């Protein structure tokens, strides 16, 4: 994950506050993804992007929005954080079929 960074790496926030997570890549890959990972549910796709300003929903997109204004940055926003959004969030990038993951952001909503 040398070419992918996520910030912040850890965050604790209160219910009802907006939160933005950032994914930054230096690989110039076209596709970028946001996942959440929870025990018993595995990796679940939230949103993904197939180019600048081109995004689409994944299987668990409710309560999340994304933006991609530059190739290298993909932002995930929790519009009004809820306790059910406590999770580990991973960004991934891809140019073909295989995906490469960032180190993750551990988010706790209290």
């Amino acid at each position: 994950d040398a070419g992918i960074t996520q910030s912040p790496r850890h965050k604790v926030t209160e219910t009802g506050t907006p939160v933005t997570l950032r994914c930054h890549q230096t690989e110039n890959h076209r596709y970028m993804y946001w996942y959440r990972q929870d025990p018993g549910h595995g990796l679940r796709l939230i949103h993904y992007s197939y180019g600048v300003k081109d995004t689409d929903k994944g299987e668990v997109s409710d309560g999340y929005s994304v933006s991609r204004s530059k190739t290298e940055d993909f932002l995930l926003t929790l519009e009004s954080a809820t306790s059910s959004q406590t999770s580990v969030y991973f960004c991934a990038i891809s140019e073909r079929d295989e995906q490469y993951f960032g180190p993750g952001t551990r988010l706790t909503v209290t």
Partner: protein
Amino acid sequence: QKEVEQDPGPLSVPEGAIVSLNCTYSNSAFQYFMWYRQYSRKGPELLMYTYSSGNKEDGRFTAQVDKSSKYISLFIRDSQPSDSATYLCAMEAGNNRKLIWGLGTSLAVNP
């Protein structure tokens, strides 16, 4: 029924054992198959990538795909304590760049 099924384990083996990890799937359109390794509190890392049926070997790791049975396997020879991790399978039909994931199998290799 989930599109991809993977036994979560945990699997515990002695050092040096041969480990077999498996996934089954239901969508016959899947063409690309991947195995990822995830250490505790880290992101998944790509271990093996195969296209279509057959075997692929990389060091101590062998990935096997049987499309007729909709079954993929990852074999680890001479397992080491450093192989202790969760192993996730993933696959894709090749038409939308979205991977379908297994839940992962937790493996512990005991010295």
